[in-house]
């Protein structure tokens, strides 16, 4: 990792004036370093995806993308990952075009920016924040969709992981969840839907929300409107936790408790994805289903 970042913030470490200093003794250093957070294994991301058209649709309008990279070596390592779920909107023509354009444009823009730094092709540091990078990628996707599939729209939930930090861009009603080591599951995104808004304001109860007639009404979607403002935030990857991205074809039909149960009963991430998709289909599969699971090891 150090090598990688040294390149990133390239400038040789200044030389030190050793003559007048008395370094901490080795024992002191060891006792500090071997503290509670001793590190052993390399850190790495692992991920798996699942997708199904569902039982009631002919067309799959969901798109998913997963890129998992590990760069590890003698000098350390930095996990890098990019995961996206996009749910194109059937109320508009070319929902599948919109969701596909969204994942390709967002990922393409982000990868183009990171490529030189991940592979040390550029000496100077990356002069943009992770939030700025993901925001500009969403902006690109917005423009591309409006140009190539005017009138269409899509949700977008994208997670850019670098080291321990997860930077999320979110528009619409696909969701990101954290599944914590202690067995809790919690959404980390807020749906941009009318029903969620009415629920947050206490205008309707969660039960009413589940049966609300206009559950699909979004007030923000990629490809729609000018001056789109995605939610963008950065949170640490919870230790021994799992990040889940999914479309409403999963969360809309399988309860959080059942998601958790299915996840914990599955031997590995790949099977967990398959089982989650299967449980959405078993519940009728009214919509396209997409799920991505990500863990950070080490």
């Amino acid at each position, binding site marked *: 990792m150090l090598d990688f970042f040294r390149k990133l*913030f390239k400038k040789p470490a200044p030389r030190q004036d050793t003559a007048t200093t008395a370094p901490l003794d080795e024992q002191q250093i060891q006792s500090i370093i071997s503290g509670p957070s001793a590190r052993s294994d390399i850190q790495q991301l692992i991920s798996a995806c699942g997708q199904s058209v569902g039982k009631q649709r002919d067309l799959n309008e969901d798109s998913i993308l997963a890129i998992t990279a590990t760069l590890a070596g003698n000098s350390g390592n930095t996990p890098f990952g990019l995961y996206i779920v996009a749910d194109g909107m059937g*109320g508009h*023509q070319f929902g599948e075009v919109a969701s596909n354009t969204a994942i390709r444009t967002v990922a393409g823009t982000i990868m183009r920016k990171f490529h030189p730094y991940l592979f040390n092709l550029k000496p100077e540091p990356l002069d943009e924040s992770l939030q700025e990078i993901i925001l500009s990628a969403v902006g690109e996707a917005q423009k591309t969709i409006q140009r190539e599939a005017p009138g269409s729209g899509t949700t977008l939930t994208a997670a850019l992981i670098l080291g321990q930090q997860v930077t999320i861009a979110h528009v619409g009603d696909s969701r990101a969840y954290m599944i914590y080591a202690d067995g809790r599951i919690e959404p980390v995104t807020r749906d941009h839907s009318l029903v969620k808004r009415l629920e947050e304001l206490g205008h309707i109860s969660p039960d009413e929300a589940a049966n609300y007639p206009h559950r*699909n009404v979004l*007030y923000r979607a990629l490809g729609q409107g000018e001056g789109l403002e995605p939610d963008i935030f950065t949170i640490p990857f919870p230790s021994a936790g799992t990040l889940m991205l999914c479309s409403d074809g999963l969360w809309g039909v399988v309860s959080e408790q059942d998601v958790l149960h299915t996840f914990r009963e599955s031997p590995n991430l790949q099977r967990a994805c398959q089982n989650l998709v299967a449980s959405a289909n078993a519940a009728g599969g009214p919509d396209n289903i997409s799920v991505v699971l990500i863990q950070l090891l080490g």
Partner: protein
Amino acid sequence: MDDGNNSTPRRQLQAGTTLSQRYLIQEVIGVGGMGSVYRARDLHFPNVVKLVAVKEMINLAPDPLVRQTIVQNFEREANLLATLNHPSIPRIYDYFSQDDRSYLVLEFIHGKDLEAIITDTDGFLPEEQVLAWGIELCDVLAYIHSHSPDPIIFRDMKPSNVMINHNGDVILVDFGIAKTFQTGVKGTMIGTEGYSPPEQYRGDATPLADIYALGATLHHALTRRDPRLEPPFSFAERPIRKMNPAVSIELETVIATALQYNVEERFPSAADMKDALVSAGRKTGVLSHLPTSNLQASAVKPLWTFTCEDEIRGTPAIHQGTLFIGSYDNNLYALNAADGKFLWKYPTDGGIVSRPGVYEGNVYFGSEDRRLHVVGARSGKVVWTYYTDGPIRSSPRVAEGHVFIGSDDHHLHAVNLNTGRAAWKFETSSSVRSTPFVANELVYVGNESGDFYTIDFRGEMKWRFQAKRAITSSPIVAGQAVYFGSMDSTLYALDARNGWILWRFRLGKSSIVSPAVAENIVITGAADGFIYAIETQSARELWRFRTEHQVSGSPVIYKDSVYCGSVDGQIYCLEYRSGRLRWKYATKGPITGSPLVYDDIVYIGSTDHQVYALLA
């Protein structure tokens, strides 16, 4: 998601087309959900140019019976509108249907719609202007709401449906007539109105829905914030004056009442809203001539004050009932925190502009005399002294048996607490005035050439980051991120482990302020005079508070308040979540240091030579 209506743009009529052998289309003047609006010439008046507006509505219903019902509804509504007679409603001259389109011929309004006015105006529209429009809109709403036998509900009040004619009067266009053309398909429709009240989504449209939408329209006009881009029904969270402080509290209150979430809490009628607008206008007309009251300021009285011989630019520290503070008169003072009684002072050979550190009975502080001084907290007697090669403006940080401190000699010094000898010195490219922060077994510090360093306990650099200008601000690490400000007018959040920029927040001017963090809020200040509150995960600005001069001292968060001094001489106490002013107290000189809050007492030094103790 379900199938919905088809909304691809359809072919518009070309200029030169004649409709109904009478209306010669000139150009498109508006595009709506169901078709276009054209300017046309009425050819029945060959000797004069009579302009009309032709509104086109395209019938999309696939089922012939449904199509027919839609056309019938359209004609019924057109007939109804033709009976209306009000200066703020355009005359209806004609209507007809051909093929899959229906047309309404209207009086042509010479003017501009309010949405275009809002976007074309730089800055905010004047309050009087918006107030006058609001009053006229109440009049026309009262007129249609009192229609008999049934009230007419406008249903779609929003800036693009309000035109301002060349006389400056408002005209309501678009009587929701097009709405009958929307096939009620379930599905993902996007961009909910933003102006409509919650009950309208259950299908209730009453006069009170129009009042809400009028409130939303005026809110948009005054704030320039398009509610369609904000979460629905979020007006209560976005008070007008937060975005446009020039608006009077009276007008803000009237609009907030119109925008009440619950129907019962709104004005019962358009006439009542008009009365409220009129009286708000009267009141502000009077109020604007009065100076702003300063009640709060005079209510705060210091518990005690203490006067030094020169300016105080530094920050106090407290330990076991004793307050320590350095002064530009070269002394470090020890005062009884309870009553401000002088206990002892320790003279150095230079000004003391930083914050002392107290650790295990000793006080650590740097001085512009280039030395790090260590004196007994009770005795005020020297324990040891450590020399650097430049004035010290950084404050000491004690951790892991060492004191870490920066100096203008370009070094960060790690000094052994017991021996008073350097464990190591880390050389940087410029003066180190930022106070180091210790976390994750690393020392974080910035310098005057804008470099930011992370150094391990052996004195080796882990990573480095470069801002565009000086980092005098002291970093703070919270939740795996490190926050600091820079003279390049940016507040940075970096990944504390590797230095990637998580986000940057643009401040109005440069900043030497050290941010404070509590829960998910980071508070800082800048030379533009503002105190800022920013959400740590999303980098969104929660609020900003304007002081009357630059902010160079750092904020302190205590319970649910923020305390911060300003070069305007005042110390401010703000509500931490909203930025609302709780109280302020004026000292007699600029404040450049930071307050200390302990046991519900605020201690602050001022360049008026005094230390103040105020009730938090």
